[in-house]
């Protein structure tokens, strides 16, 4: 699997959280320790200069993967390997967070926020060079160089997300992990940010790991998509192939249930049930209680991830073998 064309290779990644009650409570109630398997055996690669999107509903583990990849959590098992960057050093990754109100320090001026990574990594010598670089970054993301003296609260949500992007770009990374970068924004602002991210990808050759629950946004941004359900990747593939011919029953149902503006479907098949708690996942395939085609084997044996022709993968007993 290892190849120089890959910016990131993630192999059999798992993360378990200890969510036990405090020791004394546990002793009194005679309860065992409890573990939450947030991410389980997740394997994917992101090709250099491409965008891989992880999609899924809340609690499916997509944000945990983002945090594992950027090193904010340590993996319980598995490996995360970044490819070499263009100058041969290990690739640098940065992260853009969902809520631009919470991810910018309210007591710092925008100029200081963006200059911090430049100073920390020693990327420029001297204040003039640093200030020049900050102004250049602000212009790159569509803000004005005069904005350095202002505070985050003086900006709207979309502008704040632009500041987050400028800060992420300040350390000159080649890899960006974007965790729901537009879900806190209005649609017209979302369009501005998505257009900006596509433009930056073309101009700077960035590689994206894009986390979102919005399949329409994902289709706009991603070259490849991996669909997650309860900590596992259930299906992955090229964006257009996945949309044209989804194989996993969960992907099919997900695509059917999204309200679409261009072709509304008021008589759709409703996905029954709700995602189960990751604390108490169902036996066998985690999707079987909601699956319309589940059979006996699905209730007892968890399906293996099978590679499909054309580079995709699927984890389902009932999907046709190709």
């Amino acid at each position, binding site marked *: 699997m290892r190849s120089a064309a890959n910016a990131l290779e993630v192999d059999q990644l798992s993360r378990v959280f200890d969510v036990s009650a405090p020791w004394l409570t546990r002793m009194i109630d005679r309860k065992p320790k409890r573990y939450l398997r947030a991410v389980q055996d997740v394997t994917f690669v992101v090709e250099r200069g491409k965008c891989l999107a992880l999609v899924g509903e809340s609690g499916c583990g997509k944000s945990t993967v983002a945090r594992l990849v950027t090193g904010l959590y340590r993996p319980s098992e598995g490996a995360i390997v970044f490819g070499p960057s263009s100058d041969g050093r290990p690739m640098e990754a940065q992260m853009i967070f969902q809520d631009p109100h919470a991810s910018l320090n309210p007591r710092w001026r925008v100029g200081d926020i963006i200059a911090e990574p430049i100073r920390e990594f020693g990327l420029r010598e001297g204040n003039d060079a640093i200030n020049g670089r900050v102004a250049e970054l602000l212009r790159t993301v569509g803000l004005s160089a005069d904005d350095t003296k202002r505070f985050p609260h003086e900006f709207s949500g979309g502008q704040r997300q632009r500041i987050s992007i400028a800060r992420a770009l300040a350390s000159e990374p080649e890899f960006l992990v974007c965790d729901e970068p537009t879900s806190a924004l209005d649609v017209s602002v979302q369009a501005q940010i998505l257009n900006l991210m596509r433009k930056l990808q073309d101009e700077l050759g960035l590689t994206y790991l894009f986390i979102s629950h919005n399949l329409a946004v994902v289709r*706009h941004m991603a070259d490849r998509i991996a669909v997650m359900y309860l900590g596992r990747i259930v299906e992955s593939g090229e964006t257009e192939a996945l949309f044209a011919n989804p194989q996993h029953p969960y992907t099919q149902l997900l695509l059917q249930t999204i309200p679409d503006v261009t072709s509304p479907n008021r008589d759709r098949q409703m996905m029954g049930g709700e995602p189960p708690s990751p604390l108490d996942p169902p036996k066998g395939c985690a999707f079987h209680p909601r699956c319309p085609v589940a059979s006996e084997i699905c209730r007892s044996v968890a399906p293996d991830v099978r590679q499909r022709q054309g580079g995709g993968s699927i984890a389902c007993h009932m999907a046709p073998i190709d």
Partner: protein
Amino acid sequence: MTVATHPSMSDVPALDVRGLSVEFPTRKGVLTALSEVSLTIQRGEIVGVVGESGAGKSMTGMSVLGLLEPPGRISAGEIRIGGKRTDNLGESEMAHIRGRMVGAIFQDPLTSLNPLFSIGQQLIETIRLHSDRNRAEAKAHAIDLLKQVGIPGADERIDHYPHQFSGGMRQRVVIALALAGNPQLIIADEPTTALDVSIQAQITALLRELCREHGTGVMLVTHDMGVIAETADRVAVMYAGRVIEVGPVDEVLSRPKHPYTRGLMGSIPALGARVERLAQIDGAMPRLNAIPSGCAFNPRCLDAGPRCRQVRPAMVAEGKGAAEGGVACLVYDGGVQ
């Protein structure tokens, strides 16, 4: 059921808002949050109110519910719920109207339920407040409501507390609560925003089905055009405190007239096809203290002309009843020059 006891009752719209303006007096002057908003919702009709943050869509819903936060006040216009004028009522009279004539569903079901009471206690209290049922009848009705909103095992679940329900189930309980007083109108403010897509579809389908059955009018406030496309009969688009376009959903979404609606529709990534670049409306919605003169959208509008900076466009209405629509744009009203 109190529905249509009088032959003309069904002709009276569930909600009729005329020229509603809401102001917030502040130290720096009066902010106009809503300006001459007019909206009609027939019984059994779902009218979507869309717009971006700060457009005034929630403010419209709150004004109808009589829940404006002081110092906010209605400075002009009328609100009629089921024919009864409510904008000039006092707090105690309004408390009487809320629940009985107008129900509410809010975004976060966890904060709209009381965590210290079982959902049965909350439902029974609401039912008894708004009808003369005794405790046993109210409980039977509560179980019936829970069944209607699709909660499995309603007989047992009625004694559970809000934290024992999942987000989607909690929102169903909130819908049951909104229906408990058998209101003519429900204000649903972002009812599915906190839910996952697969649950969102269940809730919108439920809302649609129930309001058809009960003949309840629904004001569906949301920023999600997809939800509107699949749920609402008519839609009103708001911008900077004004309704700028209204009409049947298919009409507004597939053939938007107002330049803002056109831009908004173009900026939504569609599931059907991938485009290289989304249409984008540059700039942002003006703040309340800096609403431009003339048409509020003119600084961001590609079609704007000199007249747009001077003349405030009025709503040009056309059609009646279910086909009622209109647009407030000078392009359709005498030109922009």
